[in-house]
């Protein structure tokens, strides 16, 4: 049997609880700007997306914590124990200054590493530095 289409009023009454759940007031839904619902719906979608990302990030931290624990539990004796992240992950894009500072840090780290390798190589080959 073909269903009779809902009238506007029936649709409004049917969707009212949904928009109240989204945070609209009774007054806003029934007497406010009709297009307000679009913004409330988008805001609701954004909140869901945010919650989803938070849960994903939490999973990532938990994964990392387990990885550290298991890695240390099964590590060979004498190996350096792994540590959990010292600070939270950066979730915002880095500024130019932060990018430059990080590049500088990486460069220094690489130079230090190369110097250590050179020292070790010289020691092993029995040569002395001038």
């Amino acid at each position, binding site marked *: 049997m073909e269903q009779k289409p809902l009238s506007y009023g029936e649709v*409004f009454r049917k969707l009212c609880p949904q928009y109240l759940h989204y945070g609209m007031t009774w007054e806003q839904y*029934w007497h406010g700007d*009709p297009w307000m*619902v679009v913004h409330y719906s988008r805001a609701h979608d954004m909140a869901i997306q945010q919650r989803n990302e938070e849960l994903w990030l939490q999973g990532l931290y938990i994964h990392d914590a387990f990885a550290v624990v298991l890695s240390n539990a099964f590590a060979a004796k004498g190996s350096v124990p792994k540590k959990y992240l010292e600070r939270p992950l950066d979730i915002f894009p880095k500024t130019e200054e932060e990018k430059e500072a990080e590049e500088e840090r990486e460069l220094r780290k690489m130079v230090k590493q190369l110097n250590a390798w050179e020292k070790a190589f010289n020691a092993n080959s029995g040569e002395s530095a001038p």
Partner: protein
Amino acid sequence: MASKEVNEVVKPIILHDEENQRDYTLEFDRETVQWCEQRGFKVEDVGDYPLTKVPELFFYAFRMHHKNVSREKTNRILFDDLGGMPEGMLERLIQLYSAPYDALTANKDAAPKNPKMTVEF
């Protein structure tokens, strides 16, 4: 033929009464549309019975912002002051009447996949 984008917002109609220096804003909210339907009004009937339904729709359009304006007053504005429904006004009134419903359904396509898609009336 008029066309409007799916998520285009229809602006209310503003009538200016020079004599009384008063503005009337014609618009519909959900409560008003529901109130009209409870009185047996169907927007589809406007095309079939324009002589009775057009003045009725015009009267209902006052309810949201000017509840105390009587049917006699709105008839006087429509027939005497305006000399009938100005061109384009009926179409705008119908769009305003449908806006509370359109906003709920347009919501599903809040971010249209093809922004060039339009709806023709």
